[in-house]
Protein backbone atom coordinates (compact mmCIF):
# COMPACT_ATOMS: atom_id res chain seq x y z
CA UNK A 1 0.00 0.00 0.00
CA UNK A 2 1.50 3.27 -1.12
CA UNK A 3 0.27 6.33 0.72
CA UNK A 4 1.08 9.95 -0.01
CA UNK A 5 -0.07 12.48 2.55
CA UNK A 6 0.35 16.13 1.64
CA UNK A 7 3.63 15.40 -0.13
CA UNK A 8 5.44 18.53 -1.21
CA UNK A 9 8.61 18.99 -3.21
CA UNK A 10 10.36 22.33 -3.31
CA UNK A 11 13.46 22.80 -5.39
CA UNK A 12 15.94 25.41 -4.36
CA UNK A 13 17.20 27.63 -7.11
CA UNK A 14 19.82 30.30 -7.44
CA UNK A 15 23.40 30.50 -6.23
CA UNK A 16 22.65 30.67 -2.52
CA UNK A 17 19.32 28.92 -2.52
CA UNK A 18 17.50 32.22 -2.62
CA UNK A 19 14.73 31.27 -4.99
CA UNK A 20 12.60 28.20 -4.88
CA UNK A 21 10.16 26.35 -7.08
CA UNK A 22 7.39 24.18 -5.75
CA UNK A 23 7.06 21.29 -8.15
CA UNK A 24 4.65 19.22 -6.09
CA UNK A 25 2.26 20.88 -3.68
CA UNK A 26 0.49 18.91 -0.95
CA UNK A 27 -0.43 15.90 -3.03
CA UNK A 28 -2.30 13.10 -1.29
CA UNK A 29 -3.52 9.79 -2.67
CA UNK A 30 -2.95 6.12 -2.12
CA UNK A 31 -2.53 2.98 -4.17
CA UNK A 32 -3.36 -0.47 -2.83
CA UNK A 33 -1.77 -3.74 -3.96
CA UNK A 34 -3.34 -4.94 -7.17
CA UNK A 35 -4.50 -1.46 -7.94
CA UNK A 36 -3.42 0.74 -10.83
CA UNK A 37 -3.51 4.44 -10.15
CA UNK A 38 -2.98 6.68 -13.11
CA UNK A 39 -1.39 10.04 -12.64
CA UNK A 40 -2.42 12.36 -15.43
CA UNK A 41 -1.09 15.80 -16.08
CA UNK A 42 0.56 18.06 -18.58
CA UNK A 43 4.32 18.60 -18.86
CA UNK A 44 5.64 20.27 -15.76
CA UNK A 45 2.70 19.24 -13.64
CA UNK A 46 5.02 17.38 -11.27
CA UNK A 47 3.94 13.87 -12.17
CA UNK A 48 7.44 12.57 -12.86
CA UNK A 49 8.70 14.22 -9.69
CA UNK A 50 6.09 12.30 -7.74
CA UNK A 51 7.30 9.11 -9.40
CA UNK A 52 10.89 9.90 -8.46
CA UNK A 53 9.88 10.61 -4.88
CA UNK A 54 8.06 7.29 -4.64
CA UNK A 55 11.25 5.62 -5.88
CA UNK A 56 13.33 7.52 -3.34
CA UNK A 57 15.42 9.16 -6.05
CA UNK A 58 14.30 12.64 -5.02
CA UNK A 59 13.87 13.43 -1.33
CA UNK A 60 10.48 14.64 -0.12
CA UNK A 61 10.46 18.23 1.16
CA UNK A 62 7.50 17.84 3.47
CA UNK A 63 4.57 15.54 3.99
CA UNK A 64 4.76 11.82 4.38
CA UNK A 65 5.27 9.18 1.75
CA UNK A 66 4.97 5.64 3.06
CA UNK A 67 4.96 2.20 1.56
CA UNK A 68 3.25 -0.44 3.69
CA UNK A 69 3.49 1.98 6.57
CA UNK A 70 7.23 2.52 6.26
CA UNK A 71 8.91 5.64 5.05
CA UNK A 72 10.71 5.35 1.75
CA UNK A 73 14.29 4.29 2.45
CA UNK A 74 16.24 3.98 -0.80
CA UNK A 75 18.51 0.98 -0.76
CA UNK A 76 18.88 -2.56 -1.92
CA UNK A 77 15.99 -3.95 0.13
CA UNK A 78 13.68 -1.16 -0.86
CA UNK A 79 14.32 -1.61 -4.56
CA UNK A 80 13.60 -5.28 -4.32
CA UNK A 81 10.01 -4.31 -3.57
CA UNK A 82 9.66 -1.11 -5.58
CA UNK A 83 10.84 -0.68 -9.13
CA UNK A 84 10.47 1.92 -11.80
CA UNK A 85 10.54 2.31 -15.54
CA UNK A 86 11.57 5.76 -16.72
CA UNK A 87 10.17 7.70 -19.58
CA UNK A 88 13.26 8.25 -21.74
CA UNK A 89 14.62 4.86 -22.77
CA UNK A 90 17.60 6.39 -24.60
CA UNK A 91 18.90 7.92 -21.42
CA UNK A 92 18.36 4.80 -19.32
CA UNK A 93 21.21 2.83 -20.83
CA UNK A 94 24.85 3.42 -20.23
CA UNK A 95 25.99 4.02 -23.82
CA UNK A 96 29.37 2.34 -23.38
CA UNK A 97 27.88 -0.97 -22.31
CA UNK A 98 25.57 -3.42 -23.99
CA UNK A 99 21.89 -2.96 -23.37
CA UNK A 100 21.40 -6.29 -21.63
CA UNK A 101 23.75 -5.13 -18.88
CA UNK A 102 20.63 -3.85 -17.10
CA UNK A 103 19.76 -7.52 -16.53
CA UNK A 104 23.26 -8.31 -15.32
CA UNK A 105 23.02 -5.53 -12.74
CA UNK A 106 19.78 -6.99 -11.43
CA UNK A 107 21.34 -10.43 -11.23
CA UNK A 108 24.41 -9.17 -9.40
CA UNK A 109 22.39 -7.36 -6.78
CA UNK A 110 19.41 -9.61 -6.25
CA UNK A 111 19.98 -13.04 -7.71
CA UNK A 112 23.66 -13.83 -7.30
CA UNK A 113 22.91 -17.47 -6.58
CA UNK A 114 21.11 -18.17 -9.83
CA UNK A 115 23.06 -20.30 -12.28
CA UNK A 116 24.01 -19.09 -15.74
CA UNK A 117 21.59 -21.22 -17.71
CA UNK A 118 18.67 -20.58 -15.38
CA UNK A 119 19.31 -16.86 -15.49
CA UNK A 120 19.51 -16.92 -19.28
CA UNK A 121 16.16 -18.72 -19.28
CA UNK A 122 14.59 -16.15 -17.01
CA UNK A 123 15.91 -13.25 -19.09
CA UNK A 124 14.65 -14.88 -22.24
CA UNK A 125 11.22 -15.43 -20.74
CA UNK A 126 10.99 -11.83 -19.53
CA UNK A 127 12.09 -10.56 -22.93
CA UNK A 128 9.49 -12.72 -24.66
CA UNK A 129 6.87 -11.46 -22.22
CA UNK A 130 7.31 -7.97 -23.63
CA UNK A 131 7.00 -9.30 -27.20
CA UNK A 132 10.65 -9.04 -28.10
CA UNK A 133 12.81 -11.57 -29.90
CA UNK A 134 15.73 -12.35 -27.55
CA UNK A 135 18.06 -13.00 -30.48
CA UNK A 136 17.42 -9.52 -31.82
CA UNK A 137 17.94 -7.51 -28.66
CA UNK A 138 20.37 -9.36 -26.41
CA UNK A 139 24.08 -8.67 -26.88
CA UNK A 140 23.43 -5.38 -28.65
CA UNK A 141 24.50 -1.86 -27.78
CA UNK A 142 21.82 0.69 -26.90
CA UNK A 143 22.50 2.73 -30.03
CA UNK A 144 21.76 -0.32 -32.14
CA UNK A 145 18.25 -0.73 -30.75
CA UNK A 146 15.11 1.31 -31.28
CA UNK A 147 13.33 3.32 -28.63
CA UNK A 148 10.52 0.81 -28.43
CA UNK A 149 12.90 -2.10 -28.00
CA UNK A 150 14.83 -0.27 -25.28
CA UNK A 151 11.63 0.64 -23.50
CA UNK A 152 10.37 -2.92 -23.54
CA UNK A 153 13.74 -4.18 -22.28
CA UNK A 154 13.34 -1.86 -19.31
CA UNK A 155 9.90 -3.27 -18.61
CA UNK A 156 11.38 -6.77 -18.85
CA UNK A 157 14.04 -5.74 -16.37
CA UNK A 158 11.44 -4.58 -13.88
CA UNK A 159 9.54 -7.86 -14.38
CA UNK A 160 12.67 -9.90 -13.62
CA UNK A 161 12.74 -8.37 -10.17
CA UNK A 162 9.10 -9.24 -9.55
CA UNK A 163 8.47 -6.13 -7.43
CA UNK A 164 5.39 -5.44 -5.38
CA UNK A 165 5.05 -1.90 -6.61
CA UNK A 166 5.93 -0.43 -9.98
CA UNK A 167 6.29 3.19 -10.96
CA UNK A 168 5.62 3.29 -14.69
CA UNK A 169 6.56 6.71 -16.03
CA UNK A 170 5.28 7.03 -19.61
CA UNK A 171 6.31 3.46 -20.28
CA UNK A 172 4.53 3.24 -23.58
CA UNK A 173 5.66 6.55 -25.04
CA UNK A 174 7.77 4.91 -27.74
CA UNK A 175 5.63 1.92 -28.54
CA UNK A 176 3.37 1.48 -31.51
CA UNK A 177 -0.31 0.91 -30.94
CA UNK A 178 -0.36 -2.90 -30.99
CA UNK A 179 2.68 -3.32 -28.76
CA UNK A 180 1.24 -0.75 -26.44
CA UNK A 181 -1.84 -2.86 -25.92
CA UNK A 182 0.38 -5.90 -25.37
CA UNK A 183 2.32 -4.11 -22.68
CA UNK A 184 -0.82 -2.78 -21.05
CA UNK A 185 -2.33 -6.27 -21.02
CA UNK A 186 0.88 -7.53 -19.48
CA UNK A 187 0.50 -4.92 -16.76
CA UNK A 188 -3.12 -5.94 -16.26
CA UNK A 189 -2.02 -9.54 -15.72
CA UNK A 190 0.59 -8.52 -13.16
CA UNK A 191 -1.91 -6.27 -11.47
CA UNK A 192 -4.25 -9.19 -11.02
CA UNK A 193 -1.43 -11.01 -9.26
CA UNK A 194 -1.15 -8.21 -6.71
CA UNK A 195 1.23 -5.70 -8.25
CA UNK A 196 0.48 -2.10 -7.37
CA UNK A 197 1.17 0.33 -10.20
CA UNK A 198 1.57 4.07 -10.35
CA UNK A 199 0.95 4.76 -14.01
CA UNK A 200 2.21 8.17 -14.99
CA UNK A 201 0.98 9.47 -18.32
CA UNK A 202 -0.26 12.49 -20.19
CA UNK A 203 -2.41 10.34 -22.42
CA UNK A 204 -5.96 10.21 -21.15
CA UNK A 205 -7.07 7.13 -23.03
CA UNK A 206 -4.13 5.09 -21.72
CA UNK A 207 -4.81 6.36 -18.24
CA UNK A 208 -8.39 5.23 -18.29
CA UNK A 209 -7.74 1.86 -19.90
CA UNK A 210 -6.48 0.08 -16.80
CA UNK A 211 -6.78 2.47 -13.94
CA UNK A 212 -9.07 1.86 -11.01
CA UNK A 213 -8.32 5.32 -9.77
CA UNK A 214 -7.17 8.49 -11.41
CA UNK A 215 -5.31 11.52 -10.13
CA UNK A 216 -5.37 14.61 -12.31
CA UNK A 217 -2.51 16.99 -11.64
CA UNK A 218 -1.96 20.55 -12.67
CA UNK A 219 0.84 22.86 -11.62
CA UNK A 220 1.93 20.45 -8.91
CA UNK A 221 -1.50 20.21 -7.31
CA UNK A 222 -4.24 17.65 -7.50
CA UNK A 223 -7.22 19.15 -9.27
CA UNK A 224 -9.41 16.08 -9.24
CA UNK A 225 -9.01 12.52 -8.11
CA UNK A 226 -10.96 9.43 -7.33
CA UNK A 227 -12.57 6.46 -8.99
CA UNK A 228 -11.75 6.53 -12.71
CA UNK A 229 -15.37 6.06 -13.75
CA UNK A 230 -16.49 8.92 -11.57
CA UNK A 231 -13.69 11.30 -12.52
CA UNK A 232 -14.18 10.82 -16.23
CA UNK A 233 -17.87 10.04 -16.13
CA UNK A 234 -18.67 13.16 -14.25
CA UNK A 235 -15.73 15.55 -14.48
CA UNK A 236 -16.24 18.48 -12.17
CA UNK A 237 -13.08 20.46 -12.53
CA UNK A 238 -12.79 22.61 -15.67
CA UNK A 239 -9.27 21.32 -16.29
CA UNK A 240 -10.45 17.73 -16.35
CA UNK A 241 -13.20 18.74 -18.75
CA UNK A 242 -10.68 20.42 -21.00
CA UNK A 243 -8.56 17.28 -20.94
CA UNK A 244 -11.50 15.15 -21.91
CA UNK A 245 -12.54 17.53 -24.65
CA UNK A 246 -9.01 17.44 -26.02
CA UNK A 247 -9.13 13.73 -26.77
CA UNK A 248 -9.30 13.62 -30.57
CA UNK A 249 -12.25 11.77 -32.05
CA UNK A 250 -12.55 10.64 -35.60
CA UNK A 251 -14.95 12.70 -37.68
CA UNK A 252 -15.44 15.41 -35.13
CA UNK A 253 -13.44 18.68 -35.17
CA UNK A 254 -11.81 19.61 -31.91
CA UNK A 255 -13.62 22.20 -29.86
CA UNK A 256 -12.53 23.91 -26.74
CA UNK A 257 -14.46 23.03 -23.63
CA UNK A 258 -16.68 25.77 -22.34
CA UNK A 259 -15.11 27.44 -19.32
CA UNK A 260 -16.79 26.57 -16.06
CA UNK A 261 -17.49 29.38 -13.70
CA UNK A 262 -19.12 27.38 -11.00
CA UNK A 263 -16.57 26.16 -8.54
CA UNK A 264 -17.57 22.88 -7.00
CA UNK A 265 -14.94 23.33 -4.35
CA UNK A 266 -16.20 26.60 -3.04
CA UNK A 267 -19.82 25.67 -3.62
CA UNK A 268 -19.29 22.68 -1.38
CA UNK A 269 -18.25 24.96 1.39
CA UNK A 270 -14.89 23.29 1.95
CA UNK A 271 -12.92 26.48 1.52
CA UNK A 272 -13.21 27.49 5.08
CA UNK A 273 -12.63 24.06 6.56
CA UNK A 274 -8.98 23.91 5.50
CA UNK A 275 -9.47 20.75 3.49
CA UNK A 276 -7.44 20.44 0.32
CA UNK A 277 -10.09 18.86 -1.77
CA UNK A 278 -13.81 18.66 -1.60
CA UNK A 279 -15.38 15.22 -1.66
CA UNK A 280 -18.38 15.62 -3.89
CA UNK A 281 -19.35 11.95 -3.79
CA UNK A 282 -17.66 8.87 -2.30
CA UNK A 283 -14.15 8.53 -3.75
CA UNK A 284 -14.42 11.59 -5.94
CA UNK A 285 -12.47 14.65 -4.84
CA UNK A 286 -12.22 17.94 -6.63
CA UNK A 287 -10.21 21.10 -6.09
CA UNK A 288 -11.13 24.72 -6.57
CA UNK A 289 -11.86 25.55 -10.17
CA UNK A 290 -9.32 28.30 -10.13
CA UNK A 291 -6.34 26.15 -9.31
CA UNK A 292 -3.50 26.71 -9.41
CA UNK A 293 -4.15 30.43 -9.06
CA UNK A 294 -6.88 30.34 -6.44
CA UNK A 295 -5.86 32.31 -3.43
CA UNK A 296 -8.83 31.29 -1.38
CA UNK A 297 -8.18 27.58 -1.21
CA UNK A 298 -5.90 27.90 1.78
CA UNK A 299 -7.07 29.36 5.00
Amino acid at each position, binding site marked *: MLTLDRVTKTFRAGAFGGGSTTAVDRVSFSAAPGELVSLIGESGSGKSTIG*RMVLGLTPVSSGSLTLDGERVRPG*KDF*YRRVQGVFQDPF*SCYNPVF*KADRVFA*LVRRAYHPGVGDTEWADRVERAVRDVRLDPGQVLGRYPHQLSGGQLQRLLIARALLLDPRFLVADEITSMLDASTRIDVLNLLAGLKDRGLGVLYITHDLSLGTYLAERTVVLRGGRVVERGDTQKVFGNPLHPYTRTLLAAVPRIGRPWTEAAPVDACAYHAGGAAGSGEDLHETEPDHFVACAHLPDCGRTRP
Partner: protein
Amino acid sequence: MSTRPEPAPEPAAAPSTPAAPSEPAASSAPAAPSTPAASSAAPAAKPGGEWLHYAVRNPKLLIGSFLVVVLLAIGLIGPVLLDNGNPNEYVGPQAAPPDGTYWMGTTTFGQDVYAQFVHGLRATFLVGVVGGAIAAVIAMLVGFLAGYRGGLVDEVLTMLTNVVLVIPALAVLLIINAYMGVRSVAVQGLFIGLTSWPWAARAIRAQTFSLRTREFVDLARLSGSGTWRIVFREIAPNMSSYLFMMFILLFGGAILIASSLDFIGLGPTEGVSLGLMLQSAQQWSALQLGMWWWFIPPGAGITAIVGALYVANVGLDEVFNPKLRES
Protein backbone atom coordinates in the same frame (compact mmCIF):
# COMPACT_ATOMS: atom_id res chain seq x y z
CA MET B 1 34.48 15.72 -24.65
CA SER B 2 34.66 13.16 -27.36
CA THR B 3 33.32 10.56 -24.98
CA ARG B 4 29.93 12.20 -24.81
CA PRO B 5 27.84 9.80 -26.78
CA GLU B 6 25.05 12.01 -28.10
CA PRO B 7 26.75 14.14 -30.76
CA ALA B 8 28.32 11.44 -32.84
CA PRO B 9 31.60 13.09 -33.78
CA GLU B 10 32.37 10.98 -36.80
CA PRO B 11 30.26 10.39 -39.85
CA ALA B 12 30.88 6.68 -39.55
CA ALA B 13 29.01 6.61 -36.26
CA ALA B 14 25.49 6.84 -37.57
CA PRO B 15 23.30 6.94 -34.48
CA SER B 16 20.98 4.03 -33.86
CA THR B 17 21.81 2.35 -37.12
CA PRO B 18 22.34 -1.30 -36.40
CA ALA B 19 25.85 -2.04 -37.63
CA ALA B 20 25.89 -0.83 -41.20
CA PRO B 21 28.75 -2.95 -42.47
CA SER B 22 29.93 -0.99 -45.50
CA GLU B 23 30.12 2.64 -44.44
CA PRO B 24 32.06 4.53 -47.07
CA ALA B 25 33.45 6.88 -44.44
CA ALA B 26 36.27 4.54 -43.63
CA SER B 27 38.92 7.21 -44.01
CA SER B 28 39.42 7.28 -40.28
CA ALA B 29 40.10 3.58 -40.35
CA PRO B 30 42.92 2.99 -42.74
CA ALA B 31 43.59 -0.53 -41.61
CA ALA B 32 40.51 -1.41 -39.64
CA PRO B 33 40.75 -5.15 -39.40
CA SER B 34 37.49 -5.36 -37.49
CA THR B 35 35.35 -6.49 -40.37
CA PRO B 36 31.73 -7.28 -39.59
CA ALA B 37 32.63 -10.93 -39.38
CA ALA B 38 35.37 -10.25 -36.87
CA SER B 39 33.24 -8.00 -34.73
CA SER B 40 30.31 -10.34 -34.65
CA ALA B 41 32.70 -12.92 -33.29
CA ALA B 42 33.70 -10.36 -30.70
CA PRO B 43 31.03 -10.48 -28.00
CA ALA B 44 33.03 -11.51 -25.02
CA ALA B 45 31.36 -12.24 -21.75
CA LYS B 46 33.04 -9.41 -19.88
CA PRO B 47 33.39 -5.83 -21.11
CA GLY B 48 37.09 -5.96 -20.29
CA GLY B 49 37.55 -8.85 -22.69
CA GLU B 50 35.70 -6.97 -25.38
CA TRP B 51 37.77 -3.83 -24.93
CA LEU B 52 40.89 -5.94 -25.23
CA HIS B 53 39.50 -7.44 -28.42
CA TYR B 54 39.22 -3.98 -29.96
CA ALA B 55 42.42 -2.69 -28.37
CA VAL B 56 44.68 -5.25 -30.05
CA ARG B 57 43.05 -4.45 -33.40
CA ASN B 58 43.46 -0.70 -33.21
CA PRO B 59 46.47 0.51 -35.21
CA LYS B 60 46.63 3.94 -33.55
CA LEU B 61 46.68 2.47 -30.10
CA LEU B 62 49.23 -0.14 -31.09
CA ILE B 63 51.59 2.33 -32.76
CA GLY B 64 51.34 4.86 -29.95
CA SER B 65 51.88 2.42 -27.13
CA PHE B 66 54.64 0.66 -29.06
CA LEU B 67 56.57 3.94 -29.30
CA VAL B 68 56.09 4.69 -25.62
CA VAL B 69 57.19 1.20 -24.64
CA VAL B 70 60.28 1.44 -26.86
CA LEU B 71 61.28 4.80 -25.35
CA LEU B 72 60.63 3.49 -21.86
CA ALA B 73 62.72 0.42 -22.61
CA ILE B 74 65.57 2.60 -23.84
CA GLY B 75 65.36 4.63 -20.66
CA LEU B 76 65.28 1.54 -18.47
CA ILE B 77 67.77 -0.69 -20.23
CA GLY B 78 70.06 1.89 -21.84
CA PRO B 79 71.77 3.08 -18.64
CA VAL B 80 72.29 -0.50 -17.50
CA LEU B 81 74.20 -1.36 -20.66
CA LEU B 82 76.55 1.60 -20.28
CA ASP B 83 79.49 0.79 -18.06
CA ASN B 84 80.23 4.28 -16.77
CA GLY B 85 77.93 5.36 -13.98
CA ASN B 86 77.83 9.11 -14.39
CA PRO B 87 76.48 10.40 -17.69
CA ASN B 88 77.96 13.85 -17.04
CA GLU B 89 81.55 12.66 -17.06
CA TYR B 90 83.86 14.09 -19.67
CA VAL B 91 84.70 10.97 -21.56
CA GLY B 92 85.24 11.75 -25.18
CA PRO B 93 86.48 14.32 -27.65
CA GLN B 94 84.91 17.74 -27.47
CA ALA B 95 81.99 18.70 -29.71
CA ALA B 96 82.28 15.63 -31.88
CA PRO B 97 79.40 14.71 -34.21
CA PRO B 98 77.85 11.24 -33.97
CA ASP B 99 80.12 8.34 -34.84
CA GLY B 100 80.54 4.66 -34.03
CA THR B 101 81.80 5.19 -30.48
CA TYR B 102 79.55 8.09 -29.45
CA TRP B 103 76.27 7.32 -31.18
CA MET B 104 74.85 10.76 -30.57
CA GLY B 105 78.07 12.69 -30.54
CA THR B 106 79.51 14.60 -27.61
CA THR B 107 78.95 17.96 -26.01
CA THR B 108 81.26 20.95 -25.95
CA PHE B 109 82.87 19.41 -22.89
CA GLY B 110 83.15 15.91 -24.25
CA GLN B 111 80.15 14.39 -22.48
CA ASP B 112 78.51 11.45 -24.22
CA VAL B 113 75.12 12.69 -25.50
CA TYR B 114 73.76 9.15 -25.83
CA ALA B 115 74.58 8.39 -22.18
CA GLN B 116 72.89 11.62 -21.16
CA PHE B 117 69.91 10.83 -23.35
CA VAL B 118 69.19 7.39 -21.91
CA HIS B 119 69.64 8.63 -18.35
CA GLY B 120 67.56 11.68 -19.18
CA LEU B 121 64.75 9.54 -20.59
CA ARG B 122 64.61 7.66 -17.32
CA ALA B 123 64.40 10.87 -15.27
CA THR B 124 61.83 12.33 -17.64
CA PHE B 125 59.60 9.27 -17.43
CA LEU B 126 59.91 9.30 -13.66
CA VAL B 127 58.92 12.93 -13.27
CA GLY B 128 56.08 12.45 -15.77
CA VAL B 129 54.70 9.35 -14.06
CA VAL B 130 55.04 10.71 -10.52
CA GLY B 131 53.68 14.17 -11.38
CA GLY B 132 50.98 12.88 -13.71
CA ALA B 133 49.81 10.11 -11.39
CA ILE B 134 49.60 12.31 -8.30
CA ALA B 135 47.76 15.03 -10.20
CA ALA B 136 45.41 12.49 -11.82
CA VAL B 137 44.52 10.83 -8.53
CA ILE B 138 43.79 14.15 -6.81
CA ALA B 139 41.85 15.40 -9.83
CA MET B 140 39.69 12.28 -9.98
CA LEU B 141 38.95 12.23 -6.25
CA VAL B 142 38.05 15.92 -6.18
CA GLY B 143 36.23 15.91 -9.51
CA PHE B 144 34.12 12.79 -8.95
CA LEU B 145 33.25 13.71 -5.38
CA ALA B 146 32.31 17.31 -6.19
CA GLY B 147 30.39 16.38 -9.33
CA TYR B 148 28.49 13.45 -7.92
CA ARG B 149 27.73 14.75 -4.45
CA GLY B 150 26.99 18.33 -5.43
CA GLY B 151 25.74 20.77 -2.82
CA LEU B 152 28.04 21.87 -0.03
CA VAL B 153 30.73 19.29 -0.84
CA ASP B 154 30.83 20.67 -4.35
CA GLU B 155 31.05 24.27 -3.15
CA VAL B 156 33.97 23.55 -0.83
CA LEU B 157 35.90 21.40 -3.28
CA THR B 158 35.34 23.84 -6.14
CA MET B 159 36.60 26.67 -3.97
CA LEU B 160 39.70 24.66 -3.10
CA THR B 161 40.21 23.85 -6.77
CA ASN B 162 39.90 27.47 -7.78
CA VAL B 163 42.35 28.58 -5.10
CA VAL B 164 44.95 26.10 -6.28
CA LEU B 165 44.14 27.01 -9.88
CA VAL B 166 45.05 30.67 -9.45
CA ILE B 167 48.24 29.98 -7.54
CA PRO B 168 51.07 30.73 -9.94
CA ALA B 169 52.43 27.22 -9.91
CA LEU B 170 55.75 27.94 -11.49
CA ALA B 171 56.54 30.71 -9.00
CA VAL B 172 55.62 28.46 -6.09
CA LEU B 173 57.72 25.66 -7.50
CA LEU B 174 60.58 28.12 -7.86
CA ILE B 175 60.32 29.17 -4.24
CA ILE B 176 59.88 25.67 -2.90
CA ASN B 177 62.71 24.32 -4.97
CA ALA B 178 65.02 27.15 -4.06
CA TYR B 179 64.03 27.32 -0.40
CA MET B 180 63.90 23.65 0.44
CA GLY B 181 66.84 22.77 -1.67
CA VAL B 182 65.29 19.42 -2.47
CA ARG B 183 66.55 18.57 -5.86
CA SER B 184 65.67 14.97 -6.56
CA VAL B 185 63.59 14.06 -9.58
CA ALA B 186 60.92 12.36 -7.45
CA VAL B 187 60.40 15.40 -5.24
CA GLN B 188 60.21 17.57 -8.33
CA GLY B 189 57.49 15.26 -9.65
CA LEU B 190 55.64 15.40 -6.32
CA PHE B 191 55.48 19.18 -6.31
CA ILE B 192 54.41 19.30 -9.92
CA GLY B 193 51.68 16.76 -9.18
CA LEU B 194 50.40 18.74 -6.20
CA THR B 195 50.01 21.91 -8.23
CA SER B 196 48.85 20.77 -11.66
CA TRP B 197 45.57 18.96 -10.89
CA PRO B 198 42.97 21.78 -10.72
CA TRP B 199 41.96 22.09 -14.39
CA ALA B 200 41.58 18.32 -14.66
CA ALA B 201 39.46 18.25 -11.50
CA ARG B 202 37.21 20.95 -12.91
CA ALA B 203 36.78 19.08 -16.16
CA ILE B 204 35.97 15.81 -14.40
CA ARG B 205 33.54 17.59 -12.10
CA ALA B 206 31.73 19.12 -15.06
CA GLN B 207 31.50 15.78 -16.86
CA THR B 208 30.32 13.98 -13.75
CA PHE B 209 27.77 16.69 -13.16
CA SER B 210 26.21 16.14 -16.53
CA LEU B 211 26.41 12.35 -16.39
CA ARG B 212 24.96 11.89 -12.94
CA THR B 213 21.59 13.29 -13.98
CA ARG B 214 21.27 10.72 -16.73
CA GLU B 215 18.69 8.10 -16.05
CA PHE B 216 21.07 5.17 -16.29
CA VAL B 217 22.52 6.41 -13.01
CA ASP B 218 19.04 6.27 -11.49
CA LEU B 219 18.56 2.83 -12.95
CA ALA B 220 21.82 1.67 -11.39
CA ARG B 221 20.54 2.95 -8.07
CA LEU B 222 17.32 1.04 -8.62
CA SER B 223 19.54 -1.99 -9.16
CA GLY B 224 21.02 -1.52 -5.71
CA SER B 225 24.39 0.01 -6.68
CA GLY B 226 26.15 2.20 -4.13
CA THR B 227 27.74 5.60 -4.67
CA TRP B 228 31.29 4.51 -5.47
CA ARG B 229 30.10 1.67 -7.61
CA ILE B 230 28.02 4.11 -9.64
CA VAL B 231 30.93 6.52 -9.95
CA PHE B 232 33.41 3.91 -11.09
CA ARG B 233 31.18 1.50 -13.00
CA GLU B 234 28.64 3.84 -14.58
CA ILE B 235 30.09 7.33 -14.79
CA ALA B 236 33.82 6.75 -15.14
CA PRO B 237 33.53 4.30 -18.07
CA ASN B 238 31.72 7.01 -20.00
CA MET B 239 34.75 9.21 -19.74
CA SER B 240 37.49 6.59 -19.68
CA SER B 241 39.23 7.85 -22.80
CA TYR B 242 38.90 11.36 -21.42
CA LEU B 243 40.46 10.26 -18.13
CA PHE B 244 43.28 8.67 -20.04
CA MET B 245 43.77 11.78 -22.11
CA MET B 246 43.83 13.81 -18.92
CA PHE B 247 46.59 11.59 -17.59
CA ILE B 248 48.52 12.01 -20.82
CA LEU B 249 48.17 15.78 -20.66
CA LEU B 250 49.20 15.83 -17.01
CA PHE B 251 52.08 13.49 -17.82
CA GLY B 252 53.23 15.66 -20.71
CA GLY B 253 52.60 18.79 -18.65
CA ALA B 254 54.73 17.46 -15.80
CA ILE B 255 57.56 16.74 -18.22
CA LEU B 256 57.31 20.22 -19.68
CA ILE B 257 57.15 21.95 -16.28
CA ALA B 258 60.10 19.87 -15.11
CA SER B 259 61.97 20.85 -18.27
CA SER B 260 61.19 24.52 -17.61
CA LEU B 261 62.46 24.20 -14.04
CA ASP B 262 65.56 22.45 -15.31
CA PHE B 263 65.95 25.10 -17.96
CA ILE B 264 66.08 27.94 -15.46
CA GLY B 265 68.54 26.07 -13.34
CA LEU B 266 66.24 24.59 -10.70
CA GLY B 267 66.43 21.02 -11.89
CA PRO B 268 68.04 18.09 -10.14
CA THR B 269 71.56 19.03 -9.08
CA GLU B 270 72.88 15.63 -9.89
CA GLY B 271 72.03 13.35 -12.72
CA VAL B 272 70.51 14.49 -15.96
CA SER B 273 67.15 14.95 -17.58
CA LEU B 274 66.03 15.78 -21.08
CA GLY B 275 65.21 19.28 -19.88
CA LEU B 276 68.65 19.73 -18.37
CA MET B 277 70.19 18.59 -21.65
CA LEU B 278 68.17 21.20 -23.52
CA GLN B 279 69.23 23.80 -21.00
CA SER B 280 72.94 23.14 -21.36
CA ALA B 281 72.59 22.92 -25.13
CA GLN B 282 70.99 26.33 -25.12
CA GLN B 283 73.43 27.71 -22.60
CA TRP B 284 76.42 26.70 -24.65
CA SER B 285 74.95 27.87 -27.96
CA ALA B 286 74.59 24.46 -29.54
CA LEU B 287 72.14 25.88 -32.08
CA GLN B 288 74.46 28.67 -33.17
CA LEU B 289 77.43 26.31 -33.34
CA GLY B 290 75.49 23.84 -35.45
CA MET B 291 75.74 21.06 -32.85
CA TRP B 292 72.36 19.61 -33.77
CA TRP B 293 73.15 16.30 -32.09
CA TRP B 294 73.12 18.01 -28.72
CA PHE B 295 69.60 19.41 -28.70
CA ILE B 296 67.73 17.24 -31.18
CA PRO B 297 67.77 13.99 -29.14
CA PRO B 298 66.29 15.49 -25.95
CA GLY B 299 63.79 17.60 -27.90
CA ALA B 300 62.77 14.68 -30.06
CA GLY B 301 62.55 12.48 -26.98
CA ILE B 302 60.10 14.78 -25.20
CA THR B 303 58.08 15.24 -28.39
CA ALA B 304 58.02 11.52 -29.13
CA ILE B 305 56.82 10.54 -25.64
CA VAL B 306 54.01 13.07 -25.53
CA GLY B 307 53.09 12.62 -29.21
CA ALA B 308 52.98 8.83 -28.99
CA LEU B 309 50.69 9.07 -25.97
CA TYR B 310 48.36 11.35 -27.94
CA VAL B 311 48.18 8.92 -30.82
CA ALA B 312 47.45 6.09 -28.40
CA ASN B 313 44.70 8.18 -26.87
CA VAL B 314 42.93 8.67 -30.18
CA GLY B 315 42.95 4.92 -30.57
CA LEU B 316 41.65 4.43 -27.05
CA ASP B 317 38.71 6.66 -27.82
CA GLU B 318 37.61 4.15 -30.44
CA VAL B 319 38.16 1.25 -28.09
CA PHE B 320 36.09 2.69 -25.27
CA ASN B 321 33.29 4.25 -27.28
CA PRO B 322 31.26 1.60 -29.09
CA LYS B 323 29.76 4.22 -31.40
CA LEU B 324 33.16 5.04 -32.88
CA ARG B 325 34.07 1.47 -33.72
CA GLU B 326 34.05 0.79 -37.41
CA SER B 327 32.01 -2.30 -38.04
